[in-house]
């Protein structure tokens, strides 16, 4: 076959990029342009599926930069393959949704929107497949820059302000904290390659590792650990497909994926366990989980509530990485997958509600479920998954995280996770609950939801359910990374 | 102390001139006077070079007639090597003599030219400033510029 793993690695970046070029060129004819996006997304998904199948070989593609001792590279390993699969799979769904949303709301500058989408996906692929910190940093920054026009899409003063805060926090943390950490790693270990068992394991003392750990965790601003989280609620000024992309597929998942990858391959579980900083970083993550949930409860704006819910859910991954027990890290990796599917459902539903009824405040949504049963049904499924109820996928990460916390004796963290579930119920369930059980609103819908806006959340909700049953293959796939025997 | 001053009086003068010049540059508001101060400052440096290059008892650095014949080819080398060796080549026709060092003077001629060029450009700029602003007082010019700046801000 002509298609080798190395070519597939490169293709994962090139397919969306070329797709973007075509989208740009076809800007004048919307249907062809949308077609280009869909074709690119399907091709990418197929390519990533191929990559997933050859993960066992660990193919890699390294480019040395002259004699500087630094290199760029792509390398496939299970975590990265999983993230790439999630991103590419959800891109198809999100593209369908975007088409429906943008047309349904008559948004302007659609070509620019779709072009930067493809670039952002390409960058997310780069983050997923990077072989060392330098490459990951490069794509991480490119991701921030390419999503900026998407956040500022509406172009009014409010959008620009939100986008400016978005950019300031993300670039500030990455250049101010992450980059020094990477430079220090290069200096200490002589390279920034992701290594099994941890690059710094054995090279850095626990004290030094603690300092670096703090720099890394707060430097990866996309993981939205408090207090570097404000960019997330501020980014809600973006159109909903962007929020769906940001909060499920590309940006935040790139952030927590980076956290997990750094924890696993740069520090390694031994070093993290030995470093004193990991204990109180875990506590900060726990506080982040609870505090964000509380703020979520007090928000009446649906997207803002979902944004803080995301902040809370992302800290699950951070807490798992800091607990550093194999089960906890497995839970963190699973959270990346499960939360992605659930959150994108919730956001797409929010967008569908807005498209159909122009409502953004939760208090206005009473009884709306009777008029939009599919949408609210999907929302309910997503909510259940986030709360962690079986038979929905979100149960597994919570379970493994709690088991991991128990295995290291940190019972207080289990308490935080349970408290979080209760708070999730409090701020998520009322929305579909009141939607279905309150009397129907007086005015009817402005227009019935277009199919492309209603169907995708249903698909992803179904996906969240199916993933519950796929736990076996998922764990087998991830087992080599964490050394977990089940 | 007195001996020091007597021996090194040239440096004292240089310092006085240099500081006077610098003070004039800094303290005056008139652009032409500033240039005068600058010239004074540069002149003090010329004096520094010339006075340091003084060789007491030195003769003009010209080889005497009798050494001419040998001097043709040796002439250029004499410039590179110490005068004494060239005289040795000349075969004892001339006693060893002490020559004044021409180099500092050459350097200062060059520096004077540079100073003149600088002064010329400076004065030309002052003329154009006068044409444009109507004044050569620093304060007034700053006021005029500041007014433009603020006007630009409010525009």
């Amino acid at each position, binding site marked *: 076959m002509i298609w080798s793993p190395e070519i597939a690695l490169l293709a994962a970046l090139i397919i969306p990029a070329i797709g973007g070029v075509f989208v740009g060129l076809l800007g004048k004819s919307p249907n062809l342009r949308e077609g280009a996006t869909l074709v690119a997304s399907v091709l990418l998904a197929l390519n990533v599926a191929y990559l997933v199948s050859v993960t066992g070989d660990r193919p890699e593609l390294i480019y040395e930069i002259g004699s*500087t001792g630094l290199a760029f590279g792509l390398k496939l390993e299970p975590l990265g393959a999983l993230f790439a699969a999630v991103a590419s799979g959800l891109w198809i769904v999100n593209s369908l949704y975007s088409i429906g949303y943008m047309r349904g709301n008559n948004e302007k500058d659609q070509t620019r929107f779709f072009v930067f989408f493809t670039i952002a996906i390409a960058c997310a692929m780069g983050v997923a497949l990077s072989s060392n910190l330098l490459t990951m940093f490069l794509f991480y920054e490119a991701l921030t820059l390419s999503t900026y026009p998407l956040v500022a899409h509406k172009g009014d003063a409010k959008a620009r302000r939100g986008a400016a805060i978005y950019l300031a926090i993300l670039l500030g943390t990455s*250049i101010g904290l992450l980059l020094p950490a990477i*430079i220090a790693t290069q200096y200490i270990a002589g390279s920034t390659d992701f290594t099994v068992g941890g690059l710094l394991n054995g090279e850095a003392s626990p004290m030094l590792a603690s300092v670096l750990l703090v720099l890394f965790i707060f430097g990866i601003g996309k993981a939205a650990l408090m207090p570097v989280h404000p960019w997330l609620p501020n980014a809600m000024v973006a159109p909903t497909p962007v929020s769906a992309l940001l909060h499920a597929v590309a940006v935040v998942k790139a952030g927590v994926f980076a956290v997990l990858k750094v924890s696993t391959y740069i520090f390694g579980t031994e070093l993290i366990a030995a470093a004193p900083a990991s204990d109180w970083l875990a506590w900060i993550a726990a506080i982040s989980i609870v505090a964000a949930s509380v703020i979520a409860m007090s928000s009446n704006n649906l997207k803002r509530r979902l944004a803080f819910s995301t902040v809370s859910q992302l800290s699950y991954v951070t807490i798992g990485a800091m607990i550093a027990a194999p089960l906890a890290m497995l839970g963190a990796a699973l959270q990346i997958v499960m939360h992605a599917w659930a959150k994108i459902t919730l956001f797409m539903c929010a967008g569908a509600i807005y498209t159909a009824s122009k409502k953004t405040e939760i208090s206005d949504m009473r009884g709306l479920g009777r008029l939009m049963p599919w949408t609210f049904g999907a929302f309910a499924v997503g909510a259940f998954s986030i709360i962690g109820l079986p038979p929905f996928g979100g149960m597994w990460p919570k379970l493994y995280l709690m088991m991991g916390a128990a295995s290291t004796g940190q019972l207080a963290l289990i308490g935080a996770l349970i408290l979080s579930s209760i708070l999730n119920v409090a701020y998520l369930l009322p929305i579909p609950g009141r939607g279905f059980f309150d009397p129907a609103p007086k005015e009817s819908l402005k227009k019935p939801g277009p199919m492309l806006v209603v169907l995708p959340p249903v698909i992803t909700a179904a996906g969240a359910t199916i993933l519950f049953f796929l736990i076996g293959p998922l764990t087998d796939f991830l087992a080599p990374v964490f050394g977990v025997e089940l | 102390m007195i001996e020091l001053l007597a021996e090194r009086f040239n440096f004292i003068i240089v310092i006085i001139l240099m500081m006077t010049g610098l003070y004039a540059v800094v303290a005056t508001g008139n652009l032409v006077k500033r240039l005068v101060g600058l010239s004074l*400052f540069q002149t003090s440096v010329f004096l520094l070079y010339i006075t340091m290059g003084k060789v007491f008892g030195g003769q003009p650095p010209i080889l005497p007639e009798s050494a001419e014949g040998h001097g043709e080819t040796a002439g250029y080398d004499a410039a590179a090597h110490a005068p004494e060796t060239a005289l040795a080549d000349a075969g004892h026709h001339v006693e060893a003599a002490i020559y004044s060092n021409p180099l500092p003077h050459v350097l200062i001629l060059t*520096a004077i030219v*540079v100073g003149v060029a600088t002064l010329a*450009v400076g004065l030309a700029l002052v003329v154009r*400033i006068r044409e444009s602003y109507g004044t050569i007082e620093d304060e007034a010019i700053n006021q005029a510029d500041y007014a433009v700046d603020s006007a630009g801000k409010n525009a």
Partner: protein
Amino acid sequence: MDFLASLLPAHIVEHAPAIVVVVPLLMAAIAAILPNGKLGWAVALVSTVISALLAIAIVVDVQAGGVVSYAMGGWAPPAGIEFRIDSLNAVLLLLITLLGLLSVIYALPSVADEIADNRQSLFYSAFLVCFAGLLGVAITGDAFNMFVFLEISSISTYVLVGMGAARDRRALTAAYNYLILGTIGATFFVIGVGFLYMATGTLNMADMASRLPDLSSSRVVQAAFAFIIVGLGLKAAMFPLHLWLPNAYAYAPNFVTTFLATTATKVAFYTLVRFMFDVFWPEAAFVAVSFFWVFAVLGIVGMIVASIQAVFQEDARRLLAFSSVAQVGYMMLGLGIGTAAGVSAGMLHLVNHAMMKGVLFMALGAFAVRFGIRRISDLNGFARTMPFTSVAFTIGGLSLVGVPMTVGFWSKWYLGVAAFENGWWWAVAALILSSLIALAYIARMLAAIWVAEPHHDRAGAIASARAPWMMLAPMWILAIANIWFFFQPDFLISITNAAAEAAFAGEAR
């Protein structure tokens, strides 16, 4: 490069060091009497091309042989004036000639727009004098000769800056202040050279370098050192001796700013390196103490203060001028680290900064040619009107911040590594802080160009107004260079490492 060098006949290459400087001087005289601005430009172009080819030939020789030494007029050093090119000033030679060439190509539309027709050939004449002067500074091995060429380039610079008066009369006061400060600086330098002559009896820098170590306790030598670094520091715009720079860059014609920003301060920095490491020697106590207390400290202060000042500027070119002062601070930090790695990083930043600032100022000039841009707010919405120029500007801006994928990243990286190796983690922190501030002011300009809505009075004229291709071509050559050298940094790294080694080789004498 070897191929280009082989194009020239051997007897010309033999005298290349002299011709490189003499040709622009002669052509300047010719340009001065030409009636037509275009002819003047053609003369400038021919002259820079010749100098560039010769410079390449010299650099090839240096890379092969080590040191090229040329005795002016056949008078042997150390009594005669020597033009001496080693790996350290080979970098400068290449930089000045190539950037001069790109600037001249850029100049035709820019100068035609900004300078009165009857003055254009005189303008080009002054430019050629400046070009010759800078090349002379870079190429000479004699200390007083360096002063002379320094002043030649400076005086013509004052004239060039003053020519901006046609558009903004503040150029005159800027040129005047530059003249005063520059002359004081050059005079300090010549005082220092005088002291060195007093102490060593020679003006040849290589010769001085061999005699000075015996005189290390002499007050005269120490005073000379102090005068020299103050004088050269003023020319190099080291903080706090930089006060002439912002106004000079802001009000000069665009072509002048582009050329100066990429060459003038770099040459002065080179002279600092040459004196500190080659003529004087780093082990001497009085030199070693200056590394930290003068260069490192002032470099860091300059980096941060100038960057902060840049953030608050309204005028676009003034903002970039303050940014240049900050970037000089980076180079000074590299110098202050005092190791070969530090000097190499400083030299690398020198080259990279020339490329970055070249693009940025060229782009601003292109905006100005079409629309008379002064303030940052004038730049609103330019991305739609002049997309190519805007993208080039963006690349330059990102390079200034040090984003990976652009060559500016390597400068920051190597400076950071050199500082780390020296144990100066606080210098790395300062480096990162100033990068963040740079991000702030670059983001401001980029936001204006890409995101802001264009002004109403211009909205009608939006229909794309491309910059003239003679401006776009050099701009894009530099922009692509910014990206190319990120992926292929070997050439830059090898020449800057060689430069640092050459600087330190002075000790061996």
